[in-house]
């Protein structure tokens, strides 16, 4: 029996068809009918549950999280299905919600990329996405962002959540941060954004050559920091924008 539009990912459709055929060969017709009725009932119950709680799923992050956990544990993929958003997506509007959030994340990352070199602090991203969504958007959590970025992965745009010195950041450029840059970013976070060559020499035992090259690359080549040439101590200081905060 083939039914169009059911997206239960736990059942591979071809296999399902085959299994049903075998099943119907070995058991009676009435038993098959009974089984189908049960499935239909289950589907109805799930449909009812989803639409009853749709608003809560959309607006309450912890409920949403619990719902997604439940889907995962019973082998249901809320986004799967023959249609683009999936049957679930249509029912819940969840696929759209996820998709919409993904677009907003990309929007914020692209519009701040020049300012921060494609690396944005999670808290800042949440703040700006929330601003985009306004009051009606409901509250967005870090978990929502992480899930949404997972769905962006197939796009191959290089969106990734990275951890730098215990702080979560979202990277939106394909370029990998090399180890030296990661060290510099970590130092910057400890010092309100400001890094100078001497810090790297004294605290990380780098040579001046290595410190200068790494900092200049971040500045000129990658646009990951800003220059301050009026620094009282060292004359030349590098400010990492993703560790700085200012009004857009």
């Amino acid at each position, binding site marked *: 029996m083939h039914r169009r539009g059911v997206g239960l990912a736990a059942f591979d459709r071809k296999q399902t068809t085959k299994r049903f055929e075998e099943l119907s060969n070995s058991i009676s017709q009435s038993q098959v009918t009974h089984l189908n009725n049960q499935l239909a009932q289950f589907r109805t119950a799930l449909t009812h549950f989803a639409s009853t709680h749709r608003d809560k799923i959309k607006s309450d992050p912890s409920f949403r999280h619990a719902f997604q956990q439940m889907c995962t544990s019973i082998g249901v993929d809320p986004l799967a299905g023959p249609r683009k958003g999936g049957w679930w997506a249509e029912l819940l509007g969840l696929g759209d919600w996820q998709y919409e959030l993904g677009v907003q994340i990309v929007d914020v990352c692209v519009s701040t990329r020049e300012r921060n070199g494609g690396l944005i602090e999670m808290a800042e991203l949440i703040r700006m996405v929330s*601003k985009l969504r306004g009051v009606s958007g409901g509250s967005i959590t870090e978990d929502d962002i992480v899930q949404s970025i997972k769905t962006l992965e197939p796009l191959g745009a290089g969106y990734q959540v990275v951890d730098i010195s215990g702080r979560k950041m979202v990277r939106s450029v394909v370029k990998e941060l090399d180890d030296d840059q990661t060290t510099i970013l970590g130092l910057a976070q400890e010092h309100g954004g400001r890094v100078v060559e001497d810090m790297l020499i004294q605290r990380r035992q780098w040579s001046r050559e290595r410190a200068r090259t790494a900092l200049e690359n971040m500045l000129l080549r990658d646009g990951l920091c800003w*220059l301050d*040439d009026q620094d009282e101590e060292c004359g030349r200081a590098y400010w990492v924008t993703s560790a700085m905060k200012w009004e857009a």
Partner: protein
Amino acid sequence: MALSTHTTSTGWDSVLKACNKVNEHILGFLLPSIHSAPPFFTQQPNPATEAIVIEQWTKLILSYARHRNLFYLRVEDAETGGDWDEVLRNDRINRRLPPAHLSSILAGMVAKNVASYEPAKQTRSVLLYWRLPEEWAEVLHQWASTTGQMNTIMTFYEITDPPVNSPLTNIPLPLLRKAITILAKSNRAQIIAIADGEGVRFFTPAK
């Protein structure tokens, strides 16, 4: 001021904006937080970054000029004390905008048509368009109309120094001329030669 626990982040945003506007009138101009960032004053070697710096300085300069009714900005204002000190320096963080950087910012503003080199053929002084010439034209025509001065010949002086303060009080002559030229193109003003200088007549175009 007590924080309401029921105000959403967006609700609080608009409350803050309103408070800022009030503060500006009572306490003075509110500088954007980027003005407290030391690197903001340095000309950035990375062109993409410098484009952002110039954009932010442009916004700040125009906004301050509008607030203080200032029309001119000169490269030398970065060195000498005066009307622009509040913006071109930040003594709390010990930073100043160097003349070379200001010069580059002015060039950017002229390229974007939010300022013009005035007088012409030099690059050390600009006339700021915190209101565009087209907008000035409308304000001018509106003022002539509401003060019942249509169809009468007026001197430029009567416009820039009226007995009752108007939005046009102290408008620099080059800018006034630009606005009048724009009105002339739509048949709403005409420059008249008068005994001791320049005069203008405003009218509503014939149908």
